[in-house]
């Protein structure tokens, strides 16, 4: 009975929300979560959590994707536009986009990520106020756009004008900080797979963001995760969207090059 209901629901959903139905083939075979020794956080999860991520009807991150899909079509701002007014069907126009983010941006003269790009579109084209970092709306839109690339390999450009920012991000990753006096690398390069108390340390990849973290019972962006790790190191975090975190995001994204986009991933 529940099953019939679910099936009916799923049928209705796919009828009502064509962009959701056209996503990449999912779940991926387990082997795809590792590329030349680079391993997604999925690899380190218990089977139960993997199943939660694999199944769109159980994955709690899908609520954010659906919220994003509604926002995609919502007219906002003085220009009277929605995202869809310019970009139409996200399943076509946004496919592969999140796989290339973050990237160097000439207008900014620095690194821009998906969150900040969405806000630039709102401010410049829609004449709408920017969305607050970590707000349900911004998480929803990044999740929805990320979802259109699910299964595609992350292709991060760090050569050319991006190079100095990549170097800064790399330096951040290896810099010891905080009262613990330890670096990101000491956990995520050297100890991936080991147990830090009840946690299995992963490689700290960001191919599944924004993700649903069971410990938080909510979605979170890459920068929220950086903040969490920084405060576990008893180091003063940087603000969301700061240059420091954007450069770090570029380096960490490159570290996971070739891993499949997993948005919305589920983690412990």
């Amino acid at each position, binding site marked *: 009975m529940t099953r019939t209901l679910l099936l009916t629901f799923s049928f209705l959903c796919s009828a009502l929300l064509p962009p959701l139905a056209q996503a990449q083939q999912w779940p991926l075979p387990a082997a795809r979560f590792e590329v030349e020794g680079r391993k997604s956080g999925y690899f380190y999860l218990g089977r139960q959590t993997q199943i939660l991520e694999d199944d769109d009807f159980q994955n709690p991150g899908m609520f954010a994707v659906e919220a994003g899909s509604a926002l995609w079509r919502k007219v906002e701002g003085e220009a009277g536009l929605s995202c869809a007014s310019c970009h139409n069907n996200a399943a076509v126009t946004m496919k592969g986009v999140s796989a290339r983010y973050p990237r160097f941006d000439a207008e900014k003269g620095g690194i821009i990520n998906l969150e900040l790009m969405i806000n630039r579109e709102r401010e410049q084209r829609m004449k709408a106020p920017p969305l607050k970092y970590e707000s349900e709306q911004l998480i929803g839109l990044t999740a929805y756009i990320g979802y259109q690339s699910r299964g595609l390999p992350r292709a991060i450009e760090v050569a050319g004008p991006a190079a100095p920012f990549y170097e800064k991000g790399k330096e951040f990753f290896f810099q010891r*900080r905080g*009262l613990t006096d330890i670096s990101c690398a000491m956990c995520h390069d050297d100890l991936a797979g080991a*147990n830090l*108390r009840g946690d299995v340390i992963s490689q700290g990849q960001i191919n599944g963001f924004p993700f649903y973290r069971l410990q938080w019972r909510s979605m979170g962006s890459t920068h929220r995760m950086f903040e969490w790790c920084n405060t576990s190191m008893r180091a003063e975090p940087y603000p969301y969207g700061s240059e420091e975190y954007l450069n770090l995001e570029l380096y960490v994204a490159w570290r996971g090059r070739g891993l499949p986009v997993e948005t919305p991933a589920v983690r412990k």
Partner: protein
Amino acid sequence: MVRLVLAIALLVAAGTAAFAQQQPAPRVIEVNTPPLVPYRIVGNTIPEPLTAQPGDPVRGKRVVTDATNGTCVLCHAMPLPEEPNHGNIAPSLAGIGSRITVPELRLRLVDAKRINPDTIMLSYYRLHDLTRVQQQYVGRTYWAAQDVEDAIAYLMTLK
């Protein structure tokens, strides 16, 4: 016979003297970062206690298992079945009291990075050379001087 013993004793004494000459004197570092108690590092040890009050092993056990304050079981297994989820990053502390001396353990806890600069192990009583400490912890250490002595007293009971 007496002669032989004397000869051996002489040889040993000469050998030790020669050895002592070859061996460079252990490095001594005076660490003075107020408001922390100043202490002296000799080689891989801190020979003198940080406080006059002897360590209390019962209190020390609470210090090293405080989950909010860098507990050892984050990284080490310990002979404490009542503690859930021991880490497996570092060697087990079972029997540590038979493998280590008190002065060695004192430096290990105060500032393990003096022993191995690349270690992930935390420094429980150190203020110098830190980068971007979280505001609420600036000027603070994990432990007070007495905590160090109490922790040592507890850990040395793990034979």
